[in-house]
């Protein structure tokens, strides 16, 4: 299993960047395939695809160690895969199978994988922020050398939990990085309609912590900014609010096919800035990737996701007793 987790702090090697491309392709293919499976009626319920946002998930997780923690959002498949999650178990969860991370109880937005430091995706906007901050408190309290990343969307900024969590995280200099994936829309509401400031990172000033805006479509840039923030957190200097400017290609959820709140022109503009295209462009320009290699990597990702789909389809359904078991430890 490839993982974005790193062990050293030097700039990324070409091999490492190819690994990140692999992860981005894997996350992209996972969510694309998911939408197809919904269309075919093979998966029910709901899911939020992160296609277009892979660079923030992969770039941030690349700045982490295996022992660091990530708290995710409702749009969390890419975060989990970037942290080293297993596509089979994630896909099985979406199929509602017993082999899924949550035994089929959680679905798309309620998945935790504690063994790889994934504290959970979360169906409540900003719900994970206080919890991530508590995880950072425990890391500080226990003298662990680990850092927590709390992902949030731009919509989470409207929640009291956003303010509460960052305020206390900053006050106590906790080892945490708050990463806002600003994809410009909270479901269908433009950030501009509900926020007095354009850059979420500007809000960091109110908490006396650094705020940084990064091109969320450029995984190298995300990695570089995230590394600084993680280093700061690990050295005891407290949180950073890192804002990745990004875009999601699909609607908010699988029910949002029309996307009436934004223009097709705007979507095309962002597709030109596709994070996979940006990275492959850099790698090709630097002579680190050939067309054949890129094609092979895409096929590898597609093949891996097909294995995940087969695993999920072949997995057993939950037992009736699973409906009421595990309520208490």
């Amino acid at each position, binding site marked *: 299993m490839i993982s974005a987790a790193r062990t050293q702090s030097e700039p990324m090697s070409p091999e490492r960047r190819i690994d990140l491309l692999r992860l981005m392709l894997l996350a992209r293919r996972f969510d694309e395939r998911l939408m197809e499976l919904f269309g075919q009626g093979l998966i029910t319920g709901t899911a939020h695809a992160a296609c277009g946002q892979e660079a923030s998930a992969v770039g941030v997780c690349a700045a982490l160690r295996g022992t660091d923690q990530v708290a995710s959002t409702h749009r969390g498949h890419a975060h989990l895969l970037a942290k080293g999650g297993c596509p089979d178990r994630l896909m099985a969860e979406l199929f509602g199978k017993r082999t899924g991370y949550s035994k089929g109880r959680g679905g798309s937005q309620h998945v935790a994988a504690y063994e790889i430091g994934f504290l*959970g995706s979360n169906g409540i906007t900003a719900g994970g922020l206080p919890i991530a*901050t508590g995880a950072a408190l425990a890391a500080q309290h226990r003298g662990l050398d680990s850092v927590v990343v709390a992902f949030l969307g731009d919509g989470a900024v409207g929640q009291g939990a956003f303010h509460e969590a960052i305020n206390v995280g900053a006050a106590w200099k906790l080892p945490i990085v708050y990463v806002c994936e600003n994809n410009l829309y909270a479901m269908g509401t433009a950030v501009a309609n509900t926020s007095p400031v354009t850059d979420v990172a500007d809000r960091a000033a109110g908490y006396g912590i650094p705020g940084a805006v990064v091109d969320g479509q450029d995984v190298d840039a995300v990695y570089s900014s995230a590394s600084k923030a993680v280093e700061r957190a690990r050295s005891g200097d407290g949180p950073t609010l890192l804002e990745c400017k990004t875009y999601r290609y699909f609607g908010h959820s699988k029910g949002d096919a029309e996307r009436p709140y934004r223009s097709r022109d705007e979507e095309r503009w962002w597709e030109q800035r596709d994070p996979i295209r940006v990275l492959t462009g850099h790698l090709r320009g630097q002579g680190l990737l050939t067309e054949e290699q890129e094609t092979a990597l895409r096929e590898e990702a597609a093949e891996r996701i097909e294995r995940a789909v087969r695993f999920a389809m072949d997995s057993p359904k939950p037992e009736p007793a699973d409906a009421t078991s595990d309520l*208490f430890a």
Partner: protein
Amino acid sequence: MRKLSYAKALREALCIEMDRDERVILLGEDIAAYGGSFKVTDGLLAQYGAERVRDTPISENTIVGLATGAALMGLRPVAEIMFMDFIGLAVDQIVNHAAKFHYMYGGQKAVPIVVRTPAGGGRGYGPTHSQSLEAWFMHSPGLKVACPATPADAKGLLLSAMRDDNPVLFVENKLLYGVQDEVPEGDYTVPFGQARIAREGTDLTIVTYSRMVGESVVAADALEQQHGISAAVIDLRTLCPLDMDTVTESVSATGRCLIVAEDYQTAGVAAEIGFQVIERAFEYLDAPLRRVCGLDVPIPCARGLEEIVLPTRSRIATAAFELATF
């Protein structure tokens, strides 16, 4: 046996567990330097240090979230919500997060947190500082809810709560904090889900918890003296798990059941217990169920008004007499 106040019994439990288990930390508003709004954590800052006894911002939702996150990372936090009325601000973290994680994430990790909070009126604090909101949390799968009525149970139930691997809402009572009673020395636990017969009786069963246990016992004593009516009083101790076996056994013997709860009547704790009595002991009932609860209005400040709105020993005695003579 030595006597101790309910508040000091709670503090003794915190000390026993903090001495025994270094993973226990305390979080809450004004619990450190101030010693807690009701002085339950008085002196613990000096004893255990600022790392383990932490004053938080006034951020109830995040107090519980901090506890949950820290619990996932190996600590066993005890959070305090200064008044139960403020728990409305923390419901999301309690109900959608702490209570659900074990089930929702496939049984991977427990969330061993305790959320302590003082409930109840009778002090003239008014509509936002007097409520008993435990029914909300009986309605939230994945939580345990404890409501001690005596200093001895306060200590023993809190020790059980801190050793439980599940999230526990620990509902204390403001008027009970100063009540002195016998409290055993040393380490002991009172198990969850085991009601206590606070008073033996043969003519009717009063089912209650928290401060209303004492009020019900006083009412039952008066009833015995004045009318020769013998009322049993059952102290539930925990609302989740709920010991309906003890309730059913008593009601089956007496044939009459009065439920007393300080919370709002409609859809309250008494409604649930009453329905379960019907499900389990209908054929033994010689009279309709009765309940004495808070009236369905906000709890007013003025003493004369508060006494009308909250259950009193005289309302309990009247209802018990009517039920016994039905």
